[in-house]
């Protein structure tokens, strides 16, 4: 979780956006954000078995007058594709924070295909995509994305670049 100071700012931003449900699939890049959500009794942290569950969760929350955010990795975007229909058809607000893998110094080739398709897949399903390259821009971007989602009933994803998060290192370089 070292070097995730931006996560505290994002957490405060989510509180300011009146988010009350945080759906997530565990992710190293957003580990601090997840820990903050789990530790805050004013929020409901909701671990999901698969990211697509989060689209139903967020739509249901909004139908009932509450706001959700979904935290996931780029691989999880692939799991969400058909479920995005629910948010699109109802014009239900959707705010997704997506940790990118497979694009910057990636060690694991199995992360690459979905990562490279992530932005195109989201756009193909009419999700508006913001992309953060630097830690200092993340919180403002999440705030703007949240306002866009909840005020304009849009589906918005904020991609957190792998360069920002730092590539995962498993083994010494060959």
């Amino acid at each position, binding site marked *: 979780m070292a070097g995730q100071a931006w996560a505290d700012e994002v957490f405060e931003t989510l509180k300011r956006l009146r988010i009350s449900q945080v759906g997530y699939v565990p992710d190293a890049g957003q580990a601090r954000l997840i820990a903050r959500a789990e530790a805050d009794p004013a929020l409901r942290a909701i671990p999901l078995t698969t990211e697509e569950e989060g689209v*139903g969760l967020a739509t*249901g929350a909004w139908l009932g007058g509450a706001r959700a955010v979904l935290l996931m990795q780029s691989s999880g975007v692939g799991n969400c594709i058909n479920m995005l229909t629910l948010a*699109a058809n109802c014009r239900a607000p959707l705010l997704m924070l997506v940790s990118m893998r497979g694009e910057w110094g990636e060690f694991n080739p199995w992360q690459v295909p979905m990562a490279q398709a992530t932005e195109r897949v989201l756009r193909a399903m009419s999700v508006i995509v913001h992309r953060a390259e630097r830690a200092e821009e993340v919180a403002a971007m999440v705030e703007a994305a949240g306002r866009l989602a909840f005020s304009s*009933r849009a589906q918005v994803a904020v991609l957190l670049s792998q360069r920002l998060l730092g590539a995962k290192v498993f083994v010494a370089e060959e």
Partner: protein
Amino acid sequence: MADPQRIEGRLSRRRAVARLLAARARDWLVVTGLGTATYDAAAIADDPLNFYIWGAMGSAAMTGLGLALAQPARRVLVLTGDGEALMGLGALATIAVQNPPNLGIVVLDNGAYGETGGQASHTARGVDLAAVARGCGWRNAARVSGEEALESFVERLGAVESWPFFAAIAVRDDGEERTLPPREGVFLADRFRSALGLPPS
């Protein structure tokens, strides 16, 4: 494999849903999964506080969870089919962990994919959804089979300790005419939110 429609003890699906919704209290919000659950709920009594899902197969239970957490003073009934529930099976684990006191899930289990030609579903091939729910941690999880069991199940819904619950009701399809509610998502969502006193955005 036995034809799931011919197995003894299966209730008429439409009548089972009618019995269930006759017990609906004023505070109930109803989310239906695509297919016959949506048609049955609409046929019995359309209501602005019914949210009909026409696609996004596998999303009904999780939509119910988000809604139940957002509206803790109301009860949320998710009404769906076995095929729809099977596509979102992980939701049973996710919801059990949250243990929302105001959420109930009813699966109309006919053991078949009624919308696509009646192909046997996994529940006609040995999968027991109530057992899956119990394994996920649902304390109130039952397979409801026959008139008496349905009656006793419905009678218990008024009691707080009966919630949250998961029930798979063994039903058959009697070929009733489909009643198609509105399909437009924005309309259904705005109608629902408006009935809850919420603004469009």
